[in-house]
């Protein structure tokens, strides 16, 4: 069963690579022209086209690009002429750090608050939490980011840096303080969904026959929740967490732009501006791969948390 999911994932990635390739092909403008500017002579344009391999038929270009992807070579940047790998390495790792911190904090917080809310269903604490999470879920990430900046870094308190300084040769995590605002923004964006979904799922589970039975067996409440209820909520909740993490990969574009954070998102914005097709393709594939992997993980968690699916996959 897990192998089947894996196969589907590979297929999805292949399909995505085709789409990405064709859509970047359709981008307006000629990459050679974009690089050389309006004043370029036809000879130089032709030479650059030759160099970028733009004259070869599309399938040859696709296959050589795909081949490069498979061995980890993302190609050559049209804008800088350097390797895309080198260009993106630091940015990708900066973004991954941001997302990892956000995920590590958001997932347990979301699960615990959601469970807690479900256990106090209908009481003031639950209603308050539901209201707050609804408001937060409704706010777009840039609003949250701007609000946090106003609150913590400019107008009200001046505690944290509002933009990221990344001097050449240093890495973003050398200055942990500047990570706080972007991480907090990401967390506030994804946690409300996790809380709401966990609450709904747990509420259903807590109403179920086996939880009532566990209570009627005289088990301590903690055991009822963590041993009997939570494993049943994990599967559906994992799907939501996956969706949120996948969103992180895309939503990070806005948040990084907001805080001038030198990550994936900024690289994407720059690449589109300079018509750097190779970089756009590479970033699209990285984000797509992240989506697919996160969803695959959620499926695997769902399968492992459900003995019925697990035993089926064994046989």
């Amino acid at each position, binding site marked *: 069963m897990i192998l089947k999911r894996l196969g589907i994932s590979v297929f999805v990635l292949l399909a995505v690579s085709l789409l990405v390739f064709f859509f970047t092909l359709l981008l307006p403008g000629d990459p050679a022209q974009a690089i050389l500017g309006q004043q370029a002579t036809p000879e130089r344009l032709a030479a650059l086209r030759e160099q970028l391999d733009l004259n070869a038929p599309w399938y040859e270009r696709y296959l050589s690009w795909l081949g490069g992807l498979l061995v980890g070579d993302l190609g050559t940047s049209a804008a800088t002429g350097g390797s895309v790998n080198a260009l993106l390495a630091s940015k990708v790792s900066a973004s991954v750090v941001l997302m990892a911190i956000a995920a590590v904090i958001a997932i347990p917080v979301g699960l615990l608050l959601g469970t807690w809310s479900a256990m106090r269903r209908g009481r003031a604490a639950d209603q308050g939490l539901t209201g707050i999470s609804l408001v937060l879920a409704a706010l777009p990430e840039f609003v949250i980011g701007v609000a946090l900046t106003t609150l913590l870094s400019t107008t009200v308190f001046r505690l944290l840096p509002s933009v990221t300084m990344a001097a050449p040769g240093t890495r973003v995590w050398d200055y942990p303080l500047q990570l706080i605002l972007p991480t907090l923004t990401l967390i506030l964006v994804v946690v409300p969904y996790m809380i709401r979904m966990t609450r709904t799922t747990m509420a259903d589970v807590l*109403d*179920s*026959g*086996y939880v*009532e*039975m*566990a*209570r*009627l*067996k*005289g*088990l*301590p409440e903690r*055991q009822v929740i963590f*041993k*009997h209820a939570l*494993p*049943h909520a994990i599967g559906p909740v994992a799907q939501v967490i996956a969706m949120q993490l996948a969103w992180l990969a895309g939503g990070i574009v806005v948040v990084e732009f907001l805080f001038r954070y030198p990550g994936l998102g900024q690289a994407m914005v720059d690449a589109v501006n300079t018509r750097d097709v190779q970089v756009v393709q590479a970033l699209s594939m990285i984000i797509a791969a992240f989506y697919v992997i996160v969803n695959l993980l959620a499926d695997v968690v769902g399968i492992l*948390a*459900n*003995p*019925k699916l697990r*035993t089926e996959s064994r046989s």
Partner: protein
Amino acid sequence: MRRSEQRARAAARANASGANAPRNAPKATGRGSDRATAGRRADDRGGVVPRAVVPRASVDTAITVSHLSVGVAGGELILDDVSFRLHPGRILALVGESGSGKTTAALACMNHLRAGLELRRGTVELHAGASRFHPEAVDLLTLTERGTRGLRGGTIAYVPQDPALSLNGSLRVGEQIAEVLRAHEFGRDARERDARVAEVLTEVGLPSDRAYQRRFPHELSGGQQQRIGIAMAFACRPAVIILDEPTTGLDVATQDLVLKTVYELTTKHDVAGLYITHDLAVVAQVADDVAVMLRGTIVERGAAWDVLHHPEHPYTRTLLDAVPDMAGAREMGGGPAVAPVHSVRAPWDDGRGGDDDAGPSRSRDASTPRGGEAARGRGSGVVVEPRAGTEAGGSDPSRDASEVPAASGPGTAGGDRASVEPVVAVRELWMAYGPAVILDGISMDLPAGRTTMLLGESGSGKTTLSRSVAGLNDRYTGQVLLDGHVLAPGTRQRTREQRQRIQYVFQSPFSSLNPRRSIGDSLQVPLEMNGELSRAQRRAAVADALDAVRLGRSYIDRRPGDLSGGERQRAAVARALVNAPSLLVCDEITSALDVSVQASVIELLRELQRERGLAMLFVTHNIALARHISHRLAVLEHGKLVEYGPTDTVLRDPRHEYTRSLLEHVPTLESAG
């Protein structure tokens, strides 16, 4: 020493109950031998579990519930002044329909009120000495959460209604039993608890090895799951056990086994039992005392035998009437059986003979010309027909060769011509999923005005067969003929007229009606599909159908949520009727319903058949209904038709092992003790 004392007590009890209440012989011996084997098993393992652990009841009463009133928070009463006592070694059956408050009363004995309910008044007293955990008498309803938790599962145990919902799907069954023991600190160490898990599994008749304990609930059958539920409840050797309709949804053989286990364990361990059910036939099998509940109050109580044989309250009599009767001699649901035992004259004889055993529904026949004619038409009577089963996977060649299909028996009037040519015929139906053969060469006839009951356990292929007939399953090979014309396998390839003539009623009225649509809208759908009628005409047709199922046209704008289970199932039948079908396929349509509601639905189907001359295919696992609804009986096992013939013939002379075992285990009122 101690053990011999117990045996003496058990024997004395058995004798006593035998003396004051005659049990039927086979059951008594069955129980006796079971108890004997259980005793032997316990002896074998005497060294593993110290016998001293078994608590003997030293008190006369374990729990007294007095003046218990429970209501919806801020609303009406669910329980109104309910009182009863539970005695060690005896089972009290609390009988009533869904919604009568019996589960609420039972859960109150565990100080558990479901969300939205509140206690108004009353006490639940656990008597001094009844529990190892509470030496003094205590009112359960005043206990703290912690105190309650200590009693639940250990002193007072609960067996849930539906083990599929109540066992935790993500925990291994052995662990689910072991955790009760751990929570109540049963035994001195893990080794003793492991031994107890294995022992209690043996006590409920399940394998006790490691591999079995490591299974998950979904790897067990329904009956095994329920026995795990019972093992869980008996694990700590409780003083009181509460069983909430534990046999709902099980076939009769499994039900019988579960009931025997319950009876044996309560008597052997001197446990006070509270058994909740809506089925008086089950009461007859296990209970010593009965309390009948109606809308939150106990309307009748007494010893089981007295209540079942001399009911005083009219409601008790209604419940008794609803119990299907294998002999078919008794009326069920306001009408006589359609295929009673040989000696009882068939009810459709009324067109020719005297009228002395006329049922209440008979008068309606006379007033409906078509019904009367149809009734006369069926005058041949099943009893004189030879056993059918010519084409049907007959394992017995002598039967196959000599016999004529039932429908061609000596006939009289026009109605019989319809049954000579079956409305729907099935020929050599075969289907397989990979190597698993689901249907194995099935042939049967479904004549007009007759009901064929299709029996079989789950997985025998009975639903697949009925779905194939209705065109909901198109992957079969073989033929389904309607009036002699071969039908395309799937509904989409069948013509509109063909689709209209075969209608299907689903098992659960709770999921087959769209809760967001009014009954009228749901019933109109099949009419909209054929697109011939105007809006007003459609509404009129729907109203007629609702009248036909005795719901009345006032239901047209109501939603399924406002209706009871029985009313919903009637609405579902009405939906099948709006197209005036020739064949009604009823897939387990009464198995989700209370016994009394089941009786009324059966009555409805019989009347509809008389009025409209419908052919019916009635799929069920409840053989007890056979004589009340079916003219012919077909038994399916592993996709093979192992039994097929007139109901009376099959029931009197079952050829196949499975049919025999079903017949053996049918609970009857006569077994009351």
